[in-house]
């Protein structure tokens, strides 16, 4: 068979990035009171992209005050008008989608293929979907008395920077709240570009405020007494600390936290499709996905052949320049995260599991990690229990459906689960028994603004998306 090499197919649309970026407060970009800036870099090249303001408690105060000032007029605006503003935002995102995709890939390291085909289209869709809810909330909660919650402080992670901003902002605004959003410190640029779009669309000043920065800004925001609600997506560890901060304050809280999601392959599955599902489950976005299918359970009698076929498929994954349209696995978001992943890989080896990596060459610069799978994994191994948030798959086996359910549910998490079988009744019963907020049957990693997303147990609480997701941004019967 001839050896076909891909020629590089780089995305070349230039995107202007201001060398220095302020905070977005009260509808204006302003210099931070802290007078501090942080450099955000491209993790694929380790080159600086821009300086971004580093908010302190004083800046957060100003942002919360701006959101408070904007609250009443926004909540009292005619719902059909509020809807039109959000529809307008959705359209502008679609029109500027290429620019947003490029910016997202530059700042986060995710493949352009994913930011272009998954992230940004979902961002526009999320605004479009929620725009339509503005004047229909009474039908979502029949018989209930509804009010906006008020000023919402929202803290989001770096794995889907713009998508997480949309998941937080769109439902909050649709329900008549105003927000202060803090993007992750390593990926602030797309949220700031969204702020520009909101300005363009004449969203009233103060309805959305964006404070960039690190843990100092994040802590000041989640503890702020001027908020009525805190929403956080990120690690379970930080989520617990936030829950403790908010406890007893009367402020509302929703948390979308970590996972160690099971992916179960029965012998009667459509194997080729299941292989693709496993690949998407763990190597989509370099595995930096809270709902990643990081624990693979394969029915024992097909274990060996399944692993061989999975390894063959791994060899064809293209790892490298995220701006190359052929790239399947891009750069890890930061040096810190790459170190963390490598620490877990070493731990896996030390604890006795057997690693396999695809042999692809990595670029000489940037934070890259080859897709990796471990066999001979015991449920007690750290790599089978803790969230790695990287392209590392732990493979285990099972004999009966009962055993698969028991092992899959044996975790403190409960965000997602995947099941592959061609037997309908079995698939539906597995879905009923798995303790996870999202169950993908014969598919994996599907998202839609109309489909609620969120976890059981230590994967957090509350849902994002759909009618159920609106609950997080409304007071229903005063609660």
């Amino acid at each position, binding site marked *: 068979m001839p050896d076909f090499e891909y020629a590089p197919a780089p995305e070349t649309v230039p995107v202007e990035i201001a060398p220095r970026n302020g905070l977005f407060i009260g509808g204006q970009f302003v210099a931070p009171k802290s007078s501090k800036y942080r450099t955000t870099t491209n993790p694929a090249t380790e080159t600086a992209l821009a300086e971004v303001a580093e908010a302190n408690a004083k800046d957060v105060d100003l942002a919360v005050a701006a959101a408070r000032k904007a609250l009443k007029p926004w909540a009292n605006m005619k719902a059909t008008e509020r809807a039109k503003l959000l529809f307008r935002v959705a359209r502008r995102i679609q029109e500027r989608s290429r620019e947003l995709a490029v910016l997202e890939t530059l700042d986060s390291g995710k493949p352009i293929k994913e930011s272009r085909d998954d992230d940004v289209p979902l961002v526009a869709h999320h605004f479009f979907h929620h725009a339509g809810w503005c004047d229909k909330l009474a039908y979502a909660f029949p018989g209930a008395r509804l009010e906006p919650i008020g000023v919402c402080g929202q803290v989001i992670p770096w794995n889907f920077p713009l998508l997480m901003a949309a998941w937080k902002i769109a439902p909050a605004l649709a329900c008549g709240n105003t927000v202060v959003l803090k993007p992750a410190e390593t990926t602030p640029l797309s949220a700031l570009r969204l702020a520009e779009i909101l300005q363009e669309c004449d969203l009233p000043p103060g309805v959305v405020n964006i404070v960039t920065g690190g843990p100092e800004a994040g802590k000041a925001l989640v503890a702020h007494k001027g908020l009525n609600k805190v929403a956080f997506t990120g690690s379970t560890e930080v989520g617990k600390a936030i829950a403790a901060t908010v406890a007893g304050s009367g402020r509302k809280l929703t948390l979308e936290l970590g996972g160690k999601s099971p992916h179960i392959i029965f012998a009667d599955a459509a194997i080729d499709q299941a292989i693709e599902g496993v690949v998407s489950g763990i190597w989509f976005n370099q595995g930096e996905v809270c709902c990643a299918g990081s624990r693979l359970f394969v029915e024992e009698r097909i274990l060996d052949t399944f692993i061989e076929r999975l390894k063959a498929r791994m060899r064809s994954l293209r790892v490298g320049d995220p701006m190359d349209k052929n790239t399947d696995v891009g750069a890890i978001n930061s040096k810190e995260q790459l170190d963390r992943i490598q620490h877990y890989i070493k731990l896996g080896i030390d604890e006795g599991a057997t690693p396999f990596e695809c042999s692809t060459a990595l670029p000489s610069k940037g934070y890259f990690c080859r897709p990796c799978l471990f066999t001979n994994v015991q449920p007690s191994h750290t790599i089978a229990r803790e969230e790695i948030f990287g392209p590392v798959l732990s493979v285990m086996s099972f004999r009966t459906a009962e055993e698969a359910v028991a092992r899959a549910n044996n975790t403190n998490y409960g965000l997602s689960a995947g099941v592959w079988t061609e037997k309908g009744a079995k698939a539906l019963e597995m879905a*009923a028994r798995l303790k996870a907020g*999202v169950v*993908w049957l014969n598919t994996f990693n599907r998202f839609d603004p*109309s489909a609620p997303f969120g976890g059981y147990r230590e994967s957090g609480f509350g849902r994002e998306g759909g009618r*159920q997701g609106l609950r997080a941004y409304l007071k*229903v019967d005063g609660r």
Partner: protein
Amino acid sequence: MASKATSAKLSVIKTYKLYVGGAFPRSESGRSLPVKAADGRVLAHISHASRKDLRDAIEVAHAAQPKWANATAYNRGQVLYRLAEMVQAREAECIALLCATGEISRTDARKEVALSIDRCVAWAGWADKIAVVLGGKQPVAGPYLVYSTPEPIGVVVAVAPEKNPLLGLLSVLLPALAVGNAVVLCGGHRNPLIAATFGEALATSDVPPGVANVLTGRVSELIPWIASHREVHACIAAGLSKPDAQALELGAAENMKRVTILDRDIDLADNAALHSPWIAERLVEVKTVWHPSAI
């Protein structure tokens, strides 16, 4: 021949027990608390549940929950309706117990029992309908069948308010049971007689053993253990003091337990709010299931 002192019959002062796993154990701690009438006369004693009693009750609830969750919603509805029948049958006793401590009038007691029976009937009716309101099919942009469905969360601790002893305990108990959870109910202690005898209604109402358990005593003492127990998945509480509410939320932060705190001054006669499915929303987990749809 009997002396004068013993010829007048002594009333039997009962010590009410806990209701755990379908049985009526005493507190393992051996502790009890007196219940007094307005004039200070001791009416009865109730068991004063300990941390160990709480843990035992959670364990039996945990074991009983899957079967209750897997019962058809129609079946759960009928069992809760049977509970309404049992409360109705004990109407006179309930009124007497509500009045025993002298805090409310007979008229108010009669009203409370009537409202309580209505509350049971309302939630019996929700059992096979709440999924229609809290779940549904999702219109995603792609070739997938996607449905969301409220699943029982598991084991719920329900803390009854101090006021309206019967209506209060039913208001926190019924939503949790209707959606398929097993419950450990902690009764208030101002007039604990209703909570202390409620196990008898449960025992005769077809609620399977272990699915609903009743502890009496001092709730404040149990709050830290309720909050920290990892096999309690949710807590619905009414009438907590501010420090207790904060302690509950703070403890729950560590294990992500879902906490619903109803206002201390909640109007328990407000059927619109307390028959609302939105009361039960943190007692369920919404699960969303995707499957491709293709030929």
